């Protein structure tokens, strides 16, 4: 028998670290990989420089004269004609910016929308700053109830001496955000209930939840929007006139609830039966068991898919333009039909794409943050 000394730690061999190793391991590890790398580089060479030229280097950024500290800058703002066709004409976006953001919302009232935007941003910052858990949950509760109500009255008006703005005047990014956030926030609790319903031992609840989810998921959103917009009013002939936006919101909420339900059900199925048994054994009732034990864990697992589904919905809101709601995407054609800015759709689409990307990428990053924050594994 023998006893062994403990070994000293050594650095890994030089071939295992550094940039050369990384390149060799990730880009040039085999003949096929060398080929793919070169092909990818060629594709980038073909697409990126022309895109940068169009968007930046050859583009027109002439937004007109402005003065700073008494000095005059710039020249007369570019027009559609002297912009040229070979590169982007950003003054178009600059000129039509309000249309993209507010649609046909009365220009002298957009400050009300701005206040809502500012409130949202402020709440987000405060949510990041408040660290105390108890205050935080109270704050979130206030936010979830208070913010939508305040926003609604500010944007719609008609009370507190605010001038009423009818929903057909709402549009642009504002409308996109309203549809997406209302759709996501209201459908979420409905989706959770449907998911629980589909897991329920009560046959009737189980049956109806399953029928609902399977029916909605088998029908495209466009169909549901059409139904809500054109078919539903046929049933309500007796002077009941639902607002067009409200109809779209109902359709989108019902649609999204079915998708959330399936995502949450996936999370529920991942919870071991031992958790249900332990919750039963300590005497919790059905509501307590789900609210305190099962859902917190199931929803945590579901975060990536919940956010994924929300991102899909955010993009799908652009479909409302086919029932005549003027969301941000609809504004592209609207503004490019202006006699002074004919044919500037490309700039419009690029702008909408980039704006969408900012929102959707933020959502995706935020979901990553949530996953880390709720993780209870390996915390020192």
């Amino acid at each position, binding site marked *: 028998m023998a006893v062994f000394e403990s070994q000293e730690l050594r650095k890994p061999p030089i071939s295992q670290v550094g940039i050369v190793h990384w390149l060799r391991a990730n880009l040039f590890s085999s003949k096929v990989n060398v080929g793919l790398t070169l092909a990818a580089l060629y594709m980038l060479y073909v697409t990126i420089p022309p895109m940068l030229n169009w968007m930046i280097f050859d583009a027109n950024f002439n937004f007109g004269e402005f003065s700073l500290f008494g000095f005059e800058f710039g020249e007369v703002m570019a027009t559609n004609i002297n912009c040229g066709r070979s590169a982007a004409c950003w003054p178009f976006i600059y000129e039509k910016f309000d249309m993209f953001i507010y649609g046909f919302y009365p220009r002298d009232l957009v400050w009300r929308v701005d206040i809502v935007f500012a409130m949202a941003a402020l709440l987000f910052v405060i949510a990041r700053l408040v660290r105390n858990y108890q205050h935080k949950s109270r704050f979130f509760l206030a936010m979830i109830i208070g913010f939508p109500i305040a926003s609604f009255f500010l944007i719609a008006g008609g009370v507190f001496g605010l001038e009423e703005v009818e929903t057909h005047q709402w549009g642009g990014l504002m409308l996109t955000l309203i549809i997406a956030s209302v759709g996501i926030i209201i459908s979420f609790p409905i989706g959770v209930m449907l998911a629980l319903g589909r897991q329920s031992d009560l046959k009737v609840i189980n049956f109806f939840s399953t029928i609902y989810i399977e029916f909605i998921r088998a029908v495209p959103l466009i169909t549901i929007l059409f139904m809500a917009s054109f078919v539903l009013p046929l049933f309500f002939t007796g002077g009941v006139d639902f607002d067009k936006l409200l109809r779209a919101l109902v359709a989108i909420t019902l649609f999204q609830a079915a998708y959330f339900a399936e995502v949450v059900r996936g999370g529920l199925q991942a919870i071991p039966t*031992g*958790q249900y048994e332990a919750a039963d*054994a*300590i005497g*919790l009732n059905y509501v307590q068991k789900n609210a305190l034990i099962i859902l917190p864990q199931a929803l945590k697992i579901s975060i990536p898919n919940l956010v994924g589904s929300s991102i899909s919905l955010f993009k799908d809101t652009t479909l409302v333009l086919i029932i005549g709601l003027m969301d941000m995407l609809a504004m592209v054609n609207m503004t490019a039909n202006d006699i002074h800015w004919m044919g500037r759709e490309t700039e419009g689409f690029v702008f909408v794409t980039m704006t969408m990307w900012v929102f959707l990428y933020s959502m995706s990053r935020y979901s990553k943050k949530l996953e880390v924050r709720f993780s209870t594994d390996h915390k020192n």
Partner: protein
Amino acid sequence: MKTENNNANIIQINNLNKWYGEFHALKNINLNIKEGEIIVVCGPSGSGKSTLIRCVNFLEKFQEGEIIVNGTQLTDDVAKIRSVRSEVSMVFQHFNLFPHLSIIDNLTLAPIWVHNESKEEAREKALKLLDRVGIKDQAEKYPNQLSGGQQQRVAIARSLCTSPKIMLFDEPTSALDPEMISEVLDVMIELAKEGITMICVTHEMGFARKVAQRIIFMDEGQIVEENDPETFFHHPESDRLKLFLDQILTH
């Protein structure tokens, strides 16, 4: 239905039969357990011992027979089941701690939500219990940060938090590394001295010999033999038990 109210028996099981589909899992079980008694249930795997104790707090439904726990007969009545469960605690093979809650929150959950205790009261009691099982310093950690033995001790503390009259142990040491088994058994031995009624499904024969007042041997869904530890180990009567003891004690 008239129930024979025998004060001495805190658990009465009469003619209990249970099927999983076609499979007859428990066959005509009769068992009376007195208040403060410590029972060990053993037997080969698949013999129905876990199923039996899971029937006592109605985690498993049964088709025939009756179980009366602390004067309450178990039926589908949700309120009755909950009242029984608030008197009966269970410790599971795989601990079943709630991984999204800290240790202290795992302990205070039932006292706060089921027994309507105040947060402070529940917390104070929980800390005392954690101290008793020797892991007070881990109170703010999460279950996944603890070793298996520590997790099972937390689970025991959690089931003590509601001051139960009866404790059920479903193979509490089977999922543990050998070096952690004794720390859990030590806690259970301490408990046994305090007069809580305990039913313990286990393969730990050393533990059975030390604390059990009665040992029940089950095989193929029925009680084969029932005796005090001395007789059980040294003068087994049935061939099946002799074989079983041979198999587990020779290693």
